[in-house]
């Protein structure tokens, strides 16, 4: 260490006696220090005298007493190999994200062209640049292993975890038909047509055999979830169409996996027997159901684990991510459908985990998933562009063009004919407009490319890859860019902005029960009946095991309501200062909807003894604080109140918390009027003045300015006005504290101890 400082100071001496350079010199010193420590460390570790030992030129001047066999100590050395891999990865990710930022600065372009297209173009440019500099540079970025193991899972997990369950389950039949039958149809149609084309003498592709064509067909037929997500997210289409196309892209993975493996095996063997075909069908069921089973198992384990995480809230999100990733990897071990496993895990885990984890963990999970999936998506598109440049592209006009045309044709035919059949079973039929969007939204993407890359190396591989890339480019560029104006032109219904209305939630639940009842009266077991049965089973058995404490019995309406309460309170905290408050919230208050009370209710009631004592204690405490405050106020500080400056920030924040408490209160808990005498609520107007009022004046009272209170008194306001029943009080205190602690509890061991 001393030698280093010696060298550093010697360096600074060289740099100079010039005063103006001394600051610069200091920075250089620090930098050199850092680099030399790094290289010194590496030298200690490796203990070898290889690269990086070039002594800095300054050193050689000073090593007068060193003999020729003793190497000078390197102050600055260059060793890139040490950090090559992480450096390159980080640089790529950084580039991808900067591109993403850049697109939104150019508003015109980003409105017309979907982001995925721009990213592919960037990838092409970068690939071109790299190729130009170094012809032999291995530019193959979209390595299949990298893609399938690292880039794809975050996107799928994000999609699966936040899958809107209601429209998904309602349309499950339709989605499955499109995914399974549609993909099969596509694969065979494309494969057979391409085989037919290859047989034509003029095309000069007679070497291509049937199985290779079928394999090619199966790769290129699958709708890609990444591309669909990227494009559909920007057009905000209505929920039904979104879930149809998106669900199809997720569920066709099983079909793709089976077909791919089937045809690869067959093309090795050379002949196909009926038994093989039968085994193929069996393997489809095994792949899909097995994948779902593995996902469900991991999901349940994950939900069960989350039951015990109340004391280590910071690692909760990690459980979600790791269990899901393990589900994916486990499914891949057995060649089952990893995507379906991942989705099953997310779907199964979500309701229970969300009931158990804290609010902050929920936010963390949401944002981490969005972040990872966003980065993955960006990288995938850029790498797709780069990899395009890296490949040699044997171009056969006929083959490629016919592939593109046939893909489009088969998609349209498939969708139209399947819809005709499906509409016989659907209650709400799919219109022609819907069919068009479903057909047009069948985009191909990087999965097809990666699967193509995994093909065994034969003469056809490059041609196939070229064709696949062309199809991908066509669907992403042409269809992706034109789908938005087409949606506008056809006036397809857009996604409605739902604000989480409590009325809608009440009526959704009401409707569920109503329709179940009507079905029971009609006497046939339909969709609602089974859903109701599942819910009851869930409530009676599963929730007890997988959700902690009393939340296991909380009905859905109440948890929705609590969530809304919290959301609104947070919204107010973020948006409001006190002045803005009355205009944000409409002046409609509890008073407006409660029937008018006879006047004698306004008498001040009595409150319980314990409550009185609490109030007294608080009053005493505040009076003392006031006295302390007054003591430090001196005659000399007339202009500036010393406390105002210091505590203004704290006060503002406390004010906000106070407002949040009040508004959530304001919105939710009314006074108990009819049955029980109103309870006096205590609020602290300023720190030395206590203002008490009973409920009938509450709306006006609330608009008054308040000063901050110590945060440990937050409980009182929320509980005092609702609980008049003594027996209910401890349970509800706990309830409130539970709510509070889940809201604020990272980490909060003290508050958590109160939970029993």
């Amino acid at each position: 260490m001393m030698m280093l400082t010696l060298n550093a100071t010697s360096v600074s001496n060289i740099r100079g006696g010039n005063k103006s350079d001394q600051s610069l010199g200091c920075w250089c010193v620090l930098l050199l220090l850092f680099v030399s420590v790094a290289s010194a460390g590496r030298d200690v570790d490796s203990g070898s005298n290889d690269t990086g030992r070039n002594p800095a030129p300054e050193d050689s001047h000073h090593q007068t007493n060193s003999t020729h066999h003793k190497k000078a100590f390197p102050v600055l050395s260059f060793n890139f190999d040490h950090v090559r891999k992480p450096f390159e990865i980080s640089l790529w990710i950084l580039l991808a994200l900067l591109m993403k930022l850049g697109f939104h600065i150019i508003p015109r372009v980003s409105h017309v062209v979907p982001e995925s297209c721009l990213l592919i173009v960037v990838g092409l440019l970068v690939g071109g640049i790299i190729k130009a500099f170094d012809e032999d540079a291995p530019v193959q970025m979209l390595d299949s292993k990298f893609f399938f193991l690292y880039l794809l899972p975050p996107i799928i997990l994000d999609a699966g975890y936040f899958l809107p369950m209601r429209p998904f389950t309602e349309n499950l039949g339709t989605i499955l038909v499109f995914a399974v039958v549609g993909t099969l149809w596509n694969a065979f149609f494309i494969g057979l047509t391409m085989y037919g084309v290859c047989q034509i003498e003029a095309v000069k592709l007679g070497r291509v055999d049937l199985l290779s064509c079928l394999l090619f067909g199966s790769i290129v037929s699958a709708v890609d979830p990444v591309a669909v997500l990227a494009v559909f997210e920007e057009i905000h289409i209505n929920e039904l169409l979104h879930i149809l196309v998106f669900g199809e892209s997720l569920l066709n993975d099983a079909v793709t996996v089976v077909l791919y493996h089937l045809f690869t095996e067959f093309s090795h063997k050379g002949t196909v027997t009926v038994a093989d075909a039968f085994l193929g069908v069996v393997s489809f069921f095994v792949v899909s159901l097995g994948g779902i089973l593995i996902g469900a198992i991991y999901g349940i384990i994950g939900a069960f684990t989350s039951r015990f995480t109340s004391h280590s809230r910071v690692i909760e999100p990690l459980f979600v991510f790791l269990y899901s990733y393990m589900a994916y990897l486990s499914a891949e071990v057995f060649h089952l459908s990893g995507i379906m496993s991942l989705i099953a895990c997310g779907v199964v885990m979500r309701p229970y985990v969300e009931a158990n984890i804290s609010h902050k963990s929920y936010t963390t999970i949401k944002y981490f998933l969005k972040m990872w999936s966003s980065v993955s998506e960006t990288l995938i598109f850029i790498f797709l562009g780069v990899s395009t440049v890296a490949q040699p592209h044997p171009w056969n006009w006929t083959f490629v063009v016919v592939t593109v045309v046939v893909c489009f044709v088969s998609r349209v035919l498939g969708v139209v004919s399947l819809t005709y059949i499906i509409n016989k079973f659907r209650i709400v039929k799919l219109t022609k407009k819907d069919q068009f969007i479903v057909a047009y939204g069948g985009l191909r993407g990087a999965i097809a490319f990666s699967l193509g890359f995994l093909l065994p190396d034969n003469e056809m591989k490059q041609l196939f890859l070229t064709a696949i890339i062309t199809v991908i480019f066509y669907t992403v560029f042409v269809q992706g860019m034109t789908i938005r104006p087409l949606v506008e032109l056809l006036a397809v219904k857009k996604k409605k902005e739902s604000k989480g209305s409590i009325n809608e939630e009440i009526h959704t639940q009401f409707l569920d029960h109503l329709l179940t009842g009507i079905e029971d009266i009609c006497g046939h077991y339909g969709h609602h009946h089974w859903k109701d049965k599942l819910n009851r089973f869930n409530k009676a058995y599963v929730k007890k095991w997988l959700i902690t404490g009393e939340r296991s019995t909380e009905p859905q309406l109440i948890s929705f309501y609590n969530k809304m309460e919290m959301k609104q309170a947070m919204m107010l905290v973020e948006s409001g200062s006190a002045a803005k408050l009355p205009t944000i919230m409409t002046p409609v208050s509890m008073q407006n909807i409660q029937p008018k009370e006879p006047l004698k209710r306004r008498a001040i009631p009595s409150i319980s003894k314990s409550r009185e004592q609490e109030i007294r204690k608080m009053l005493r405490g505040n009076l003392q604080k006031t006295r302390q405050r007054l003591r430090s106020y001196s005659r000399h500080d007339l202009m500036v109140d010393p406390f105002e400056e210091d505590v203004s920030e704290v006060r503002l924040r406390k004010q906000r918390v106070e407002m949040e408490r009040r508004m959530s209160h304001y919105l939710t808990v009314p006074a108990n009027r009819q049955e029980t005498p109103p309870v006096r609520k205590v609020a602290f107007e300023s720190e030395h003045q206590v203002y008490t009022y009973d409920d009938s004046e509450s709306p006006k009272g609330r608009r008054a300015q308040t000063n901050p209170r110590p945060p440990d008194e937050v409980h009182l306001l929320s509980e005092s006005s609702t609980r008049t029943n003594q027996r209910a009080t401890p349970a509800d205190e706990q309830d409130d504290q539970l709510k509070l602690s889940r809201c604020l509890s990272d980490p909060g061991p003290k508050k958590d101890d109160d939970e029993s």
Partner: protein
Amino acid sequence: MGAAQTRTENKYQDLAEKTGFSQEQIKNLHKRFQYLSGDEETISRDDLRKIPALANNPIRKQIIEAFFDKRNQHQDEVGSFQEIGFEQFLMVMSHFRPPTLKTTDEEREAMRREKLRFLFNMHDTDSDGTITLEEYRKVVEELLSKSGSIGQEAAKAIADAAMLEVASTNVPHMGPDDFYEGITFEHFEQILKGLEMESRMHIRFLDVDAPTMHCGKSKS
């Protein structure tokens, strides 16, 4: 025998035109009606209460009441029946028909209004044309009635918040002394606009001749 059959078919024809069901659907529903009523001409409340699957339904009472509500017969009467015949049964069921591909936009609007009216009548138990706070509280309480004591206390809070929401979206500028009497049908329509009732409030009516479930009840 032949005359009776043609009479039944004519009656079905009338009903089909009135309610919009197809002939097969009406036949199936008639079979179910006869099963529920024990082969009599009318159904009473007890007949519906005896359905075992309904026992788990938290809003069972309201559903049964809706069948006997005169307002759902579209004949501008109020009050309730003691017993209903097949025609009234069918009228109530017709509220749950889905829209078809050929339904025009105006017909969809009318259908939505009809379904929302049905829901409104279920909530407005005293038939005064508005849903008061008390009635709404009752609705939420019934929804949460299977959830024990947690449900009872939160029900009031939820109903109040919901009422506040209706009031604030429909009547944005209320003074502190104005009183919002209750949710009228227009406000109800407004607040549930986003749910698209015509696509959600429907069940599947069997077209083909399917055997009805007997659920362990034997005919006596």
